[in-house]
């Protein structure tokens, strides 16, 4: 069984302070849900640098090589045709397609890497903690131990920052 506590704040300053406090006291924060990006939240949560750009670069490089290589092979080796009096290996005419495929591969690589890494996409199971987290509420979800020793400590911190609707929930794994 997995237990967690959820609460929401009306103001992002309270959320930031509560998050900082919980992190300092070594509680495990499962997620923080906000309707808009909050400056300074990522360093408090201790997020590591995203590796998405690396994947984008690798995807882009693959797309670049595939596009250029395929065109060179098709126009020079496999089916050489004279087009507009240009040489078979006409680099400038390959560039637009190479550029487009580079962008396409980079974008797809990043989008799919993101979906896979965050377990999103078709068939994903992501419980909605509160209907209003996409509207005007700043929500925090903190993991609790099974015995229930941490409940009061977490509640105390949350109440200090005027948290509302503090709920302890249990879900089967």
């Amino acid at each position, binding site marked *: 069984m997995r237990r967690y506590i959820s609460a929401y704040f009306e103001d992002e300053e309270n959320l930031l302070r509560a998050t900082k406090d919980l992190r300092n006291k070594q509680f495990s924060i499962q997620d923080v849900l906000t309707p808009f990006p909050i*400056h300074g939240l990522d360093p408090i949560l201790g997020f590591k640098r995203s590796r998405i750009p690396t994947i984008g670069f690798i995807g882009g490089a693959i797309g670049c090589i595939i596009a250029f290589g395929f065109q060179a092979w098709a126009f020079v080796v496999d089916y050489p045709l004279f087009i*507009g009096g240009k040489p078979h290996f006409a680099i*400038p*005419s390959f*560039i637009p397609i190479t550029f487009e495929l580079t962008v396409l591969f980079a974008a797809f690589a990043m989008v799919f890497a993101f979906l896979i890494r965050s377990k999103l996409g078709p068939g994903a199971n992501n419980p909605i903690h509160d209907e209003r987290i996409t509207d005007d509420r700043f929500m925090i979800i903190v993991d609790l131990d099974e015995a229930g020793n941490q409940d009061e400590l977490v509640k105390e911190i949350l109440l200090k920052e005027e948290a509302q609707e503090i709920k302890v929930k249990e879900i089967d794994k």
Partner: protein
Amino acid sequence: MEEKYTLKRKTQYGILSIAGVGILLLILGYFIESPNRQELWANVLINNLYFLFIALFGGVFLALHKIAYAGWYTALKRIPEALTKFLPISAALMFLIYFGMHDLYHWSHEGLHDPILEGKAAYLNVPFFFARMALYFLGWIGLTYLLRKNTLDQDLNPDLKYHNRGKILAALFMVFFAITSSTMSWDWIMSIDAHWFSTLFGWFIFIGMFVCGIATIILLIAFLKSQGYLEYINKEHIHDMGKYLFAFSIFWMYLWFSQYLLIWYSHIPEETAYFAPRLTDHKVLFFTVLVINFLFPFLALMTRDAKRNLKWLSFVAIVVLIGHWLNIYMLVIPGTVGKTAQIGLIEIGFIALYLGGFLYVVFTSLAKTPLLVKNDPLLEESFHYET
């Protein structure tokens, strides 16, 4: 947080000695290389344009961020403002071209009996050329002067009306610049090869100007930071300047290639006449410009860490500045000097002389006013800037 930049003796001597070396090289080069009139005037034009672009970009930078309601740039506003102080000198130098008209612009010759040039004579004639030049400089100098004066007035008076007036001035400058940046590039650069034309030439020149200006601002930030000023300019501001340099280097290449691809593909002699001398007589330089201005900054500034490292960013900025000087060289030289052109003492002498003068003007105007603006409603946002 009031701080004022004081121009140190050492810096002053350094700047003056750059100009001194320039003069020395020019005298040496004049006797050793014995350049012809074309080469001398072409060099004057190249450096006029190069430093004019950097100075003019100061105004673009201010106006662009003002009308976009950007807050982050407010703390470094004085640097682009100082760049615009070179514009009056640029104007004087540009009018010098009057004496070199015939060496630079083929269309200015009398009795050519050239049907293409006769067709363009309504636009390309000497009186109108200088009338337009006067109009451009009147608008640029006038509006950048008013923009700067507006922020200086704001320093003394916390009234919000200066902020609002600045937005109107910035919008006026942007509209005026949008038109004149195109026509200026037709007048001064494209008309060297008067038979040829390209519709995206103005944007191409504008983006080159953008890259040069950003690189110069980066170097000035780096210099001032190394002297212990601008401690409120943090990594986030540097990161944004790096993003600009990266993005506009790519956009420069995009426009360059858009122009080249269509001309290469259609293969019409009137159009390929522009690239033919560049690809045959100046082949090495032609491709070097592409490598320095696109490939190098593209790879060097790709990662986030590279954009946030001021030392590395300054190095890239220096390389790109050299690249864009070579770009303007490649635009001007094939139509004026031609095959025999070589970069020698004369070229380096001219750059050093102009650079010395430019830096002197910029640094003295930086030292005149406090480095940090006051009373700007967006200043606080600039201090807490975070991406």
